[in-house]
């Protein structure tokens, strides 16, 4: 097992708002190993983006960060801004979630890609623009559109431009925040393959934040599941997808359109005043009294499997997830058969 390239220890991120303090990440610990793809899935608003941005210290001044984020041997939270800047983009890249807001409206997309080359690899204008054009082609946009401005692009195209920017100089660690959302199946596949292909080729690592469980299951080596600011389950991708142990993961998988479209009643919890005990207890089908009282800790099970659930502590796990809900078969087949195609 290779050493971790990034290790987050007990990270707490909170925002101050007029309605109280939003605890967007609570006691998050995870590790990304050299050459590993870690999938991060979870409920919307549970703090995935926050985690991704926290690594690069891109959160607004209102955010309060505690804990440790070790990149190789540097603690990113105490690193001087100057050194941080050297890491950003070059060593740790990020594909941000909201392309329409993250692209500068007054610079042509080509320029926005080219500037990375010009800045980080110090090449001439011509050369950089040529490389930017290549990058655009790579994500399926004709390079002639490089001189167009963001407002002239479609949503999916902007998303791909963001990917192009994130991949431009092949960082050692890539944080990809929903890199394939808003893409049609073909394109999605192509982009996913592109990203993973490049990451693997460079033996880089990646934190893949996504709502697309199938994608996560297929691409990631390991998966972390977040709920309400906490990591609730973590383990090898295949295992998580095929035999989820946390009730939330289970419910998540059941809600897939192809898997029954099952919903769970109740709302995502407030991050200002999270529910007592287990944060999922109100919606959990397997809850029992203790769930509302005791806040479960993240426990390591066998085989690098972590879980934050009282059930697992009590050894009642077997009852819960007897049937694998989502096997990886169809996903793995997808590229050959193309079930993504309509």
């Amino acid at each position: 097992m290779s050493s971790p390239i990034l290790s987050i220890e007990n990270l707490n991120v909170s925002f101050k708002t007029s309605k109280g303090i939003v605890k967007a990440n609570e006691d998050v610990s995870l590790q990304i190993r050299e050459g590993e793809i870690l999938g991060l899935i979870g409920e919307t608003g549970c703090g995935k983006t926050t985690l991704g941005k926290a690594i690069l210290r891109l959160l607004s001044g209102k955010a309060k960060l505690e804990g440790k984020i070790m990149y190789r041997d540097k603690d990113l939270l105490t690193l001087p801004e100057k050194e941080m800047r050297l890491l950003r983009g070059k060593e740790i890249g990020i594909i941000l979630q909201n392309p329409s807001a993250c692209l500068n409206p007054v610079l042509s997309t080509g320029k926005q890609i080219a500037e990375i080359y010009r800045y980080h690899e110090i090449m001439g204008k011509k050369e950089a623009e040529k490389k930017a054009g290549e990058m655009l082609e790579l994500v399926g946009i004709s390079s002639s559109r490089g001189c167009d401005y963001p407002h002239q692009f479609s949503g999916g195209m902007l998303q791909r431009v963001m990917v192009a920017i994130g991949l431009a100089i092949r960082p050692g660690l890539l944080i990809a925040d929903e890199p394939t959302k808003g893409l049609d199946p073909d394109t999605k596949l192509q982009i996913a393959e592109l990203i993973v292909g490049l990451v693997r080729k460079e033996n880089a690592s990646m934190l893949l934040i996504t709502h697309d469980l199938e994608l996560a299951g297929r691409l990631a080596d390991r998966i972390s599941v977040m709920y309400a600011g906490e990591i609730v389950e973590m383990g090898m991708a295949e295992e998580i997808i095929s035999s989820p142990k946390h009730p939330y993961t289970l419910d998540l998988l059941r809600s897939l359109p192809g898997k029954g479209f099952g919903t769970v009643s109740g709302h995502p919890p407030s991050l200002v005043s999270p529910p007592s005990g287990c944060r999922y207890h109100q919606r959990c089908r397997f809850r029992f009294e203790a769930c509302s009282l005791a806040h479960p800790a993240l426990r390591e099970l066998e085989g690098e499997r972590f879980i934050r659930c009282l059930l697992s502590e009590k050894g009642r796990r077997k009852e819960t997830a007897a049937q694998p809900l989502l096997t990886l078969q169809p996903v793995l087949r997808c590229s050959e058969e193309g079930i993504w195609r309509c």
Partner: protein
Amino acid sequence: MTDVIEKTEITEKAYLAEKRPDLEEFGKNKLAVSGLMLIAVLCILALFAPEIAPHDPFAQKLDRRLLSPSSEYPFGTDELGRCIFSRVIYGTRISLGIGLLVVAVTSVAGTAIGLTSGYRGGLLDEVLMRGVDIVMAFPNIILALLIAGLLGPGFSSVVLALAFTQWPAYARLVRGQALSLRKRAFVEAARALRPSGFYIMRKHILPNCMEPIIVLGTLEIAHVIIFASALSFLGLGIQPPVPEWGSMLKAGIPYLRTAPHLTFFPGLMIIFTVFAFNFAGDGLRDSLGQPADQEVLAR
């Protein structure tokens, strides 16, 4: 699903409290509060000038000309032996009046025109902006002469003359912002609600281009006060010996080297006023609902 999900309720209290955080934020902003306090001081000076001023602002004592500040004359005396302190205090009435009135009128009118022009675009934009060009291309004195000719002298013609020359600045500034803002996605989203153009301008465009308006408005006060004194020689109203800061400054110019206090104190009052309104303006801007400022990165 028997568990009671804590029913969140937007209670009356919470709602009201949240609807007014702007004021609260304003209150928390020390600068803004001090700005308001300075404005209050100015207003008090204007209202109670007769009570505050130690001397008659018009009383000349030719044997006590150009005295330096002393306990009897806190700001000294001017070239005709008048108490500068008293004149400065009385001057608050006129200078502040003109400054406030002109800035209020022009910023509102100019903003309205700029918004309309920028948001609606097309022919209307062309017409309005050519109008702005015409007004701006005018040397101010010609306009002032015109107004003097039409209205005769008086406080109102000063205000009108100044207002007429100053509004285009706001119009142009706001139009530029509006041109850009109208293409933003959130404006299109608002348009999908099919409100009137006026509504979009008021609710969506205006709040997003308040900053330059506030900056210009709060700084314009000084400009207006000084400019007002320049108009006085056209017979537009404020005539000597009426104390007015701009004119006092001007009258003190010959003594710039021998008795600098003649220009210093009226100048100080203008600066004071500008500070007051800038502080308050900054506070206003912060309470306009500023999206979280992201420029400081968290550690």
